[in-house]
C-alpha cells in the first residue's frame, strides 16, 4: 500500500510543511526564501488568491437571501454553532460536518475550513502581541508549566511579521498589549470616540483604542496588495488582498522563489520516524481523492495543521520509540486544550448623536486591553488572568422595532438609521488544564480510515468567575459613559466557539512535562517543528494568530540555521 511510483529523489524535499493556513503559509515562505525546497501538504483543495466567487454578490444575488435552507444546514450542524460563519456567501469555505466528523464528550464547537489558506482566509484579523505578563504567567502563578521563552525572544519577530502582513493600529503603551509596527489606525466613530474619552476620564486603569487589525490602510508595499475598501466582506475572501491571508501574501511569496510545491488533497497520516537516526524522515500522506497512501521525505518537517489536527497527526505517528505518539514522552500531547471564552458583555444605547453617521463599513471595532491582574492594584480575588473587550458602536437599521406600524410612516421611519448603540464583548483567558483534552477514537474511523478526534474540554471555576466580572464591568463602563437601556448579556460559549483552539503540544523547558522546546522543536525529535496553536503554553486573552506567525518565522530561522550547522 505504501508506495510512490516516482523515485525517492522526486519525492524528497528539504522541508515539508503540513498545512497552508496562517502559520503553514509563514513556514513555507520563510523556508523557501532561505533557499530550501519546500513541499506544502494541504488536505483540502486549491484556492488561488482572487478565487473568491461570492466577493461581489449582494443578498439578492444568492439563494435564500444568503441564508442556508434547512436541507442545506443538515451538512453543517456544528459549523452552524457560531451563528455567523456559514452562509450562502461562505459555505464553500467551511467543512461539511457530515464529511469531517468529530465527537464531543463535552460540547465543543470545532469550526474549520479545509482548503489552501485554511482559516487565514476566514479569520477575524485582530492582531495583538502577547507580553511578559502573559509569557511569565504560568511560572508566576505555579500553573501548568513555564513558557520557555519571554517577550524579548519574540519581540523582533512580532516586528518582522507586523511589517510584512500590514497591521493597522495605534501604539498606546499598555503593559499587557505591547506596542508594535503599525500602519495608520482605523479611527473610532463619534460614539466610540465619546466612549473612549469617558473611559479615560472615569477609569484610570482602563483605556479604549481602535482594534489592531491585519488590514492595509495606506497604499504601497506589501507585494502589491491593495488597501482596505471598507466593504466588510472579508470572510468571502478579499479581491483587493487588503487583509492578510496565506493566499494573498505568504504563499505567493513562497511560490515566487521557485522553491515551493503545493500538494492539495493530501491528508497527513503520520510523520515517518527512523529509530536509528532518531529523526523524522518525512510524512505519510493519504490522497483524499484516490485514498492511496504516499510517502514524502524531507530533512525537516513543520507541523502546521492547526492545534487539533497537529496533535492528531503526532498521536497517530507511532513507533517503537514513541508508542504513544511522536515526541509524547510527557503524555501531554493532546492535553491542555484551550480557547477563549466570550459571548458575554453588555450593550447600551446613547442619545445626543442623532445627526451623526459614518461612511464605509469598517471591518474592525474597538479594543479595551486587559485591566485585571496586571499589577498589584488590579489583583482580583476570585480569578487569575483576565480578559479584553472587543465591540463597537453603530446605528441600528431596518431590523429594529419601529414606532410606526404600517404603510408610508413605517417605510419612512425604517429608511432612516435608528438609535446609536454600543456593545462590549469580553474575550477571556482560559487556563491550561491537563484534563481538558482530545483523544483519538480508533473505533470511529473517518472515510479515509483515520481515527477521529473526541473532545473533552470545559470551562472551569476560574473561567466562570471571570465571566461574572466580564459582564458587570462592561455594563459599568457603558453606564459611566452615559449610555441608557444597558443590557448585560450572556450567551452559550462552548469551548471552540472562539475558533482559537490551542495548547495540544505545548512548549516547555522539559521533555517530561511538555512536547516542544523553546524553538518549537519536538524535544526528542529535533527536526520536527510545531508552530501553530498547538504550541501554546498559555492562552493569554488576546487573539493568538499574530503570535503563531511570529513564532513560526522565528522557528523557521532557527531551523535553517541548524540545518546549515548540520545539527538536524
Amino acid at each position, binding site marked *: 500500500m505504501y508506495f510512490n511510483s516516482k523515485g525517492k529523489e522526486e519525492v524528497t524535499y528539504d522541508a515539508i510543511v503540513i498545512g497552508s493556513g496562517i502559520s503553514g503559509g509563514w513556514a513555507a515562505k520563510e523556508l523557501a526564501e532561505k533557499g530550501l525546497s519546500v513541499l506544502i501538504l494541504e488536505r483540502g483543495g486549491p484556492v488561488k488568491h482572487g478565487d473568491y466567487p461570492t466577493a*461581489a454578490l*449582494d*443578498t*439578492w444575488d444568492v*439563494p*435564500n*437571501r*444568503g*441564508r442556508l*435552507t*434547512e436541507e442545506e*444546514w443538515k451538512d453543517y*450542524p456544528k459549523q*452552524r*454553532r457560531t*451563528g455567523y460563519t456559514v452562509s450562502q456567501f461562505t459555505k464553500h469555505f467551511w467543512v461539511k460536518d457530515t464529511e469531517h466528523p468529530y465527537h464531543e464528550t463535552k460540547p465543543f464547537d470545532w469550526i474549520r475550513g479545509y482548503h489552501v489558506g485554511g482559516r487565514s482566509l476566514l479569520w477575524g484579523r485582530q492582531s495583538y502581541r502577547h507580553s511578559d505578563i502573559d509569557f511569565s504567567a504560568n511560572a508566576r502563578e505555579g500553573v501548568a508549566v513555564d513558557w520557555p521563552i519571554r517577550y524579548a525572544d519574540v519581540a523582533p519577530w512580532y516586528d518582522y511579521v507586523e511589517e510584512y502582513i500590514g497591521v493597522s493600529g495605534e501604539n498606546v503603551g499598555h503593559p499587557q498589549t505591547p506596542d508594535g509596527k503599525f500602519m495608520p489606525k*482605523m*479611527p*473610532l*466613530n*463619534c460614539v*466610540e*470616540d465619546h466612549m473612549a474619552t469617558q473611559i479615560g476620564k472615569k477609569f484610570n486603569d482602563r483605556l479604549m483604542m481602535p482594534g489592531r487589525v491585519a488590514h492595509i490602510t495606506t497604499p504601497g508595499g506589501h507585494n502589491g496588495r491593495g488597501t*482596505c*475598501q*471598507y*466593504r*466588510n466582506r472579508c470572510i468571502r475572501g478579499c479581491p483587493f488582498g487588503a487583509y492578510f491571508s496565506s493566499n494573498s501574501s505568504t504563499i505567493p511569496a513562497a511560490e515566487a522563489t521557485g522553491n515551493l510545491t503545493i500538494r492539495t488533497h493530501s491528508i497527513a497520516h503520520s510523520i515517518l520516524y527512523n529509530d536509528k537516526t532518531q529523526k523524522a524522515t518525512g510524512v505519510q500522506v493519504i490522497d483524499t481523492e484516490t485514498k492511496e497512501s504516499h510517502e514524502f521525505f524531507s530533512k525537516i518537517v513543520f507541523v502546521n495543521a492547526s492545534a487539533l489536527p497537529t496533535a492528531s497527526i503526532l498521536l497517530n505517528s507511532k513507533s517503537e520509540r514513541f508508542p504513544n505518539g511522536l515526541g509524547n514522552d510527557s503524555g501531554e500531547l493532546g492535553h491542555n486544550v484551550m480557547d477563549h471564552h466570550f459571548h458575554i458583555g453588555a450593550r447600551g444605547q446613547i442619545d445626543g448623536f*442623532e*445627526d*451623526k*453617521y*459614518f*461612511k*464605509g*463599513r*469598517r471591518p474592525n471595532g474597538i479594543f479595551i486591553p486587559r485591566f485585571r491582574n496586571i499589577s498589584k492594584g488590579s489583583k482580583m480575588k476570585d480569578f487569575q488572568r483576565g480578559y479584553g473587550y472587543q465591540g463597537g458602536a453603530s*446605528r441600528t*437599521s*431596518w*431590523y*429594529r*422595532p*419601529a414606532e410606526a*406600524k*404600517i*404603510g*408610508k410612516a*413605517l*417605510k*419612512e421611519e*425604517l*429608511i*432612516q*438609521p*435608528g438609535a446609536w448603540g454600543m456593545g462590549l464583548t469580553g474575550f477571556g483567558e482560559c487556563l491550561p488544564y491537563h484534563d481538558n483534552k482530545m483523544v483519538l477514537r480508533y473505533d470511529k474511523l473517518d472515510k479515509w480510515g483515520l481515527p477521529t478526534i473526541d473532545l473533552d474540554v470545559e470551562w472551569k471555576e476560574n473561567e466562570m468567575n471571570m465571566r461574572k466580572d466580564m459582564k458587570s464591568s462592561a455594563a459599568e463602563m457603558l453606564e459611566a459613559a452615559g449610555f441608557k437601556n444597558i443590557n448585560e448579556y450572556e*450567551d452559550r460559549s462552548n469551548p471552540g466557539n472562539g475558533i482559537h483552539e490551542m495548547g495540544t503540544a505545548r512548549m516547555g523547558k522539559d521533555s517530561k512535562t511538555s512536547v516542544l522546546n523553546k524553538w518549537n522543536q519536538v524535544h526528542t525529535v529535533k527536526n520536527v517543528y510545531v508552530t501553530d496553536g498547538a504550541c501554546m503554553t498559555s492562552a493569554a486573552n488576546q487573539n493568538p494568530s499574530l503570535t503563531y506567525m511570529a513564532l513560526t518565522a522565528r522557528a523557521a530561522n532557527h531551523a535553517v540555521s541548524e540545518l546549515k550547522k548540520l545539527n538536524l
Partner: protein
Amino acid sequence: MKRREALKTSAFLAGCGLSAGTIAAIVSGCQSEPSLYPDAHLGEDHVRLLGEIVETIIPTTDTPGAKAAEVHLFIDQVSTQFTEDELVAFKAALDEIDKGNGKKFAKMSSEEREEYLLSIEAKGGDKNPYNMLRGLTCQGYFTSEIGATKALAYDPIPGEYKPCIELSEVGKAWAL
C-alpha cells in the same frame, strides 16, 4: 445547535419589532425565483393576496414598494422552510385576512387595508399574524435589490472610512 436557538442568536431576523415567538416561527427560504404564481408553494391565491398585504405594509412612495420588490414571492419562498404546523397556521391566517371584516380584503381601499391589518395587530399575542407578516415584509424588502438600492443608501465599495460625518450627507440609512 437547534434551528430555533440559531435564530435567536441571529440578528438577521430579529427585526421590525418581532417578538421572540415570532422570530422563532420564521425561517427564511427562497431557492429560485418562480416566475409564475401557479408554481407558488402557498398557492396562487395566497400569493396574490400576499402581494396586496406587503404593498400595504411597505407601499410605493417616491421609491418602489414591497410588491415591486416581489416581497410576496420572497415570503412564498420562506414558507418552503416552515414546518407542517407553521404552514397550516400561516395559510389559515392568510385566509382570515382574505375574508376581511365583512368586506373582503381585496375590495378594501388602501386606507381600509391599513386599518384592518392594524386591527389584527391590536389583538396582540406572541404569534400575532400581522407582526409576522410585517417582519417578513421588512426583511424581504430591505434585503431586495429595490429595497437596498432604491429605498436605502447603497454603496457596495465605499473605498474609504469616514468615522464621523453629518447624517444629512447620506440622508438615510446604509443598506449594507
